[in-house]
């Protein structure tokens, strides 16, 4: 039993659990699952400037999202403290593909060859971490949602805008994987 809980959870366990956060948040306070709003709320709380997008009542409509995000951080820390940092049992074709990008050491959740403080000074490290981070913030705010907001919540509510966003997200991700990642290697 413990070994099952401590080990990686299969998709048919984790997926439905993630889906249940949608009704949970609605029942708790009519909140829609999503996390890109936390970035907007943090900006509004810290450096709103004179930007209209950040001039809103973030305490009423955004604080809950910041709490959810910090909760994610704490929950992840708890999971790792109890059962360690998982290393995914990666598909062999993916191992081969990322080996061609110079990622040969599959260990932990992210490759240390790309994601480390040390790699910040390399072109690839800076592109993936700082450039990628910038695009995550810019794009998810522009699209008004991310994987959870559009991909789970929006699609479940049968929102056409979310379907368009999910298609865009996959198009961007596939293009970056096949063209951008090899180019910056």
């Amino acid at each position: 039993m413990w070994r099952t809980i401590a080990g990686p959870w299969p998709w048919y366990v984790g997926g439905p659990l993630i889906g249940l956060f949608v009704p949970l948040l609605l029942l708790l306070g009519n909140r829609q699952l999503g996390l890109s709003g936390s970035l907007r709320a943090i900006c509004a709380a810290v450096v709103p400037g004179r930007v209209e997008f950040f001039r809103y009542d973030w305490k009423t409509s955004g604080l809950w999202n910041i709490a959810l995000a910090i909760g994610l951080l704490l929950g992840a820390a708890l999971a790792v403290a109890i059962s360690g940092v998982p290393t995914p049992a990666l598909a062999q074709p993916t191992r081969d593909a990322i080996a061609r990008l110079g990622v040969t050491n599959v260990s932990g959740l992210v490759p240390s060859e790309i994601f480390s403080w040390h790699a910040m000074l390399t072109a690839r490290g800076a592109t993936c971490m700082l450039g990628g981070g910038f695009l995550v913030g810019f794009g998810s705010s522009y699209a008004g949602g991310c994987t959870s907001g559009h991909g789970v919540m929006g699609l479940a509510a049968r929102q056409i805008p979310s379907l368009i966003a999910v298609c865009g997200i996959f198009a961007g991700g596939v293009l970056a994987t096949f063209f951008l990642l090899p180019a910056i290697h």
Partner: protein
Amino acid sequence: MTTFSGSMPNGSTVSEADGPAHARSRAVETLTYLAVGAAFGIVVVKTEVISWYRIQEMFRFQSFHMYGVLGSAMVTAMISLEILKRTGARALTGEPIVVPPKHLGTGSRYWIGGMIFGVGWALTGACPGPLFALIGSGATVYIAVGLAALVGTWTYGFLRPHLTH
């Protein structure tokens, strides 16, 4: 809920909106979402959806894992929404549950914004939620990724009046 304005015993002035009852309910709300977020954080670590490696598998179409997670999450959420709708369930706060429709507009914000975010997701292996979870998992360099994401969000807010939506 009772709110009042006036002077507190310690001499500080409170406005109506920030009365003690209001502050207390906000604290309860914040703690509740912290707990919900923590549960979510455990799930995203155990299912490995916050892993750059898993995201690579997904964008290369080499594993069913991510599609299984996201697909079954979506189906579970859809069935839940249907149940909530049919039972006319209300939120704990007493108000009816509503999911306001998103405005399509020209649709361009969804595909352009989505594509930009998708590129970022492939590069970092993280969307906004996993950014926080990865920091918690000990990958402290994601603090820098998260700060870059905040700069990106701020830049969007700044450029928003000039962008097509």
